[in-house]
């Protein structure tokens, strides 16, 4: 019997808990004897703490302790690198010395009975600094090649060359050569980061907002010099993260440190403002893209030279240029990735890190080329559709770009587009239609899961994954129910606890592939075991007969498919904008996205992901910008009044998401590619291209605010 739950639009199994407020988020756990920690942050970007006076803070009402580099315990800080940590460099060590490396760096922790008392006392800590020269102005930094050659197994070579790109560019009949700038953006999930730490001897429990419980345990164990088994991390619900919960940030260490000194549980919760100084961001990028083509629109040269900001203490780099090496066919390609080291805190992965930014530049440039050639933008892409991954020289495991262009264009009504800019109107509004290609790699990492069948015909399935919003709770329950042949209500899936089998980081769009494959394998094994031992061909009946639990644990490993195939999800995004020619304001009216992302386990939650990505893309295109003060690294708009993200009224009334049929046997046992990140890729360039079509103005610096259009 099969219930065929995979592929069904199942509603969130945790939906009721969430909307009724019964889902418990990190800051909400009730831990007896809890004290509150408030972080004092540096007000300079680079230098040393000359003096720090905490007497007044210590005397303030309710204060339990004030920790600074002068009195904080020395910590082990054993080497530790989790997958999201940059290969080169070292994390900041909390309260271990007088060094200040960035604006807003934690320099003291005040612990008090109440949050208000802690916050107040934190204002009483007096600090003086010896400033050292440094810079937080990316325009004044000469970027350099990174030391690291590799990052997380994904090859990100600083420089690549095939053919003779410069020669081909010089000889090209038609060329475009421009620079694209994307400012720093912050993740801004709705839930602020928070950690509650409680010690019991040398055992520590952390209730944390994280995308990877095991890495938190590993890192905190390394920091405190204790075995990782001694650290339990609990994180059942995450109120959005977009990558801000990938690494283990300083406030987690501070909560644990505070709890150790105070000898009682301590909670540290970041304010919205602090979210701009301590949990990473999408780095500012500057990218030159030069394209050369023949008159008939064949790409002859592609040069993509980009750099991004990073800190002075870690070399963060993202996959800015990866797609340029294989998305379109081109014999002569040069890419160079550099970093600008600044006195800022280390950026991190933010939804489609690298791809979202790199593809904005690439797909804007392709559109510019289409205009220069007088060729339809879809047609230009079709003319340069590659037969294989020309960088890796491997076939694609599957690639549905043609189908995505066709389906999305049809749904959008692209054939009714008139090519000239400013040629379409609706009353006083200028209408523009634009499109872009999207891609994101299929990532798949080792994962484990446990399935336990009970005599009453229910099942418990576990893996220490995370669900920052995509619907992991639901999709894993679906996979398990499907394999076990049990109704969904009889399967209980659990995630978000280091006591569960280890899962990879909940990022890189690989949870469905990795954890899903582990859940699938564990359930298969348990089911076969139950059927054989119970002598029945139905799990419920077999378990009734058996009368005792059946348990199966598995570890899944990616095979060698990545040696044989280039594996990516692909998509096409079409956008309609309306621009008021007198005010320069842009409204996105429609977005249609078609994606070839392998098998779609839950079309309902997958669609939600894509809609979220589209709205995020609107933010990237039109609004988001963390302003960085070039003198001191301060972010003057570190709040929701001044850092604009799209509100509901900014969401187009029509967001159409299409998943094209794709049966890819190579990627992973479940045949999925992941949709979480490709969902934002291509949206910003589609909008920028549509704005060009509407207005005739090419804006190469995001966000495209009204003043840039007048």
């Amino acid at each position, binding site marked *: 019997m099969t219930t065929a739950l995979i592929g069904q639009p199942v509603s969130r199994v945790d939906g009721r808990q969430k909307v009724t407020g019964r889902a418990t988020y990190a800051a909400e756990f009730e831990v007896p004897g809890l004290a509150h920690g408030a972080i004092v942050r540096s007000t300079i970007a680079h230098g040393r703490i000359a003096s720090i006076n905490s007497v007044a803070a210590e005397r303030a009402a309710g204060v339990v302790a004030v920790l600074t580099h002068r009195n904080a315990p020395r910590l082990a800080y054993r080497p530790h690198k989790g997958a999201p940590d940059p290969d080169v460099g070292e994390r900041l060590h909390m309260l271990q010395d007088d060094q200040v490396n960035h604006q807003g760096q934690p320099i003291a922790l005040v612990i008090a009975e109440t949050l208000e008392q802690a*916050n107040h006392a934190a204002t009483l800590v007096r600090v003086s600094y010896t400033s050292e020269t440094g810079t937080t102005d990316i325009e004044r930094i000469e970027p350099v090649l990174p030391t690291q050659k590799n990052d997380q197994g994904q090859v990100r070579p600083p420089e690549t060359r095939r053919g003779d790109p410069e020669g081909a560019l010089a000889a090209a009949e038609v060329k475009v050569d421009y620079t694209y700038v994307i400012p720093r953006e912050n993740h801004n999930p709705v839930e602020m980061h928070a950690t509650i730490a409680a010690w019991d001897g040398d055992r520590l429990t952390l209730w944390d907002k994280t995308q990877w419980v095991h890495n938190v345990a590993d890192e905190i164990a390394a920091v405190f010099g204790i075995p990782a088994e001694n650290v339990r991390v609990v994180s059942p619900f995450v109120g959005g993260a977009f990558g801000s919960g990938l690494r283990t940030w300083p406030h987690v260490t501070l909560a644990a440190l505070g709890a150790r000194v105070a000898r009682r549980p301590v909670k540290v919760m970041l304010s919205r403002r602090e979210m701009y100084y301590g949990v990473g961001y999408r780095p500012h990028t500057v990218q030159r893209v030069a394209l050369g083509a023949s008159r008939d629109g064949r790409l002859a040269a592609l040069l993509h030279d980009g750099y991004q900001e990073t800190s002075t203490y870690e070399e963060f780099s993202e996959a800015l240029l990866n797609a340029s090496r294989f998305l379109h066919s081109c014999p002569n390609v040069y890419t160079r990735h550099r970093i600008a080291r600044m006195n800022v805190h280390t950026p991190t992965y933010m939804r489609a890190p690298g791809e979202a930014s790199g593809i904005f530049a690439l797909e804007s440039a392709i559109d510019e080329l289409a205009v220069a050639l007088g060729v339809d933008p879809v047609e230009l892409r079709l003319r340069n559709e590659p037969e294989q991954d020309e960088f890796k020289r491997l076939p694609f495991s599957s690639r549905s770009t043609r189908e995505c262009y066709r389906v999305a264009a049809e749904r959008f009504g692209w054939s009714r587009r008139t090519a000239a800019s400013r040629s379409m109107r609706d009353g006083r509004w200028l209408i523009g239609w634009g499109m872009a290609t999207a891609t994101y790699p299929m990532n798949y990492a080792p994962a484990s899961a446990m399935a336990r069948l009970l005599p009453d015909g229910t099942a418990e399935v576990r893996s220490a994954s995370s669900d920052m919003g995509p619907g992991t709770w639901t999709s894993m329950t679906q996979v398990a129910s499907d394999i076990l042949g049990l109704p969904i209500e009889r399967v209980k899936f659990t995630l978000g606890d280091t006591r569960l089998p280890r899962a990879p980081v909940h990022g890189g769009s690989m949870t469905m592939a990795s954890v899903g494959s582990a859940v699938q394998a564990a359930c298969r094994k348990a089911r076969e075991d139950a059927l054989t031992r119970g002598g029945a061909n139905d799990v419920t009946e077999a378990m009734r007969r058996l009368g005792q639990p059946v348990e199966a644990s598995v570890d899944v490993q990616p095979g060698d498919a990545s040696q044989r195939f280039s594996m990516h999800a692909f998509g096409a995004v079409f956008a309609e904008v309306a621009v008021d020619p007198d005010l320069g304001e842009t409204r996105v009216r429609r977005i249609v996205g078609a994606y070839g992302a392998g098998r779609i386990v839950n079309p309902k939650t997958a669609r939600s992901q894509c809609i979220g990505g589209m709205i995020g893309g609107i933010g990237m295109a039109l609004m988001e910008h963390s302003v960085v003060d070039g003198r001191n690294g301060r972010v*003057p708009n570190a709040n929701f009044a001044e850092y604009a993200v799209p509100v509901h009224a*900014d969401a187009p009334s029509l967001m159409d998401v299409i998943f094209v049929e794709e049966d890819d046997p190579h990627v992973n046992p479940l045949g999925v590619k992941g949709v979480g990140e490709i969902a934002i890729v291509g949206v910003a360039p589609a909008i920028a291209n549509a704005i060009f079509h509407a207005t005739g103005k090419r804006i190469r610096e995001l966000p495209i*605010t009204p003043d840039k259009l007048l």
Partner: protein
Amino acid sequence: MNNIQYVAPQSIDEAVAAMAAANGTGRVLAGGTDLLIQMRAGVVSPGIIVDVKKIVEMTTIDETSGGYRIGAAVSGAVIGEHARLKKAWPGVVEAINLIGSKQIQGRASAGGNLCNASPAADSVPALVAAGAIVTVQGPKGRRDVPVEKIHAGPGRTTLQPGEIVVSFTLPARPAGSSDAYLRLIPRTEMDIAVVGCGVSLTIQNGTCTAARVGLGAVAPTVLLVEDAAKALAGSRLDDKALEAAAAACRAACKPINDKRGTIAYRTKIAGVLLKRAAGIAAERAGRK
């Protein structure tokens, strides 16, 4: 943080006395949608908070021989539900109702919007265009002031220590009058005006016989643009008059560059919004 006192007097006299006793550390609390945020951010730290929401005169709307008296602490939501006020002064009401969201509307007052003295305060240009008179009471008694005289600069007012804004009075005006308020914000909702423009006018037999124009977010204070009003008054609101009024608005602008808009952009938009707001007000006044 320590020792903040809170009082909620029933009368204006008591409120004024409480403010006087506070020796400059008193703060009026209306909806609190600015004050509480500023307190949390550590920008203000009052010694005593004087909540005025229990004072009848400050929380009610009265009709006064053709005009209206709006208590300074009446919430936006209550104002938006006052059908006759809305009909008489649609521009003032829409400006107040643009403040924030549903939740904010349940709290925010026009008095708070004015006294917070943001140059981008949405209700103020509309109130300036409407010719609203502000009644102020303080230790030295009551006085009436034109609304445009209240702002002194970003975050600063001409109110004397201990003075409280009691109410706004919108004058009676002839048939054929109406008003409108428009603002430009970079996103569709919940944002701070890059430019705001209020226009109030009277039209008789197709000719504009009286006009007032208020401009927000283009100078340190909300502006009364008399030259724009002059360009409109006496005209038939033809393109030439509208362009002259738009030019007067642009000339009045003394904006800053910031993340939300450049000087050039704000200046240009002031003219565009003037034309559009004048068009809407004229339509409402019954032209055609």
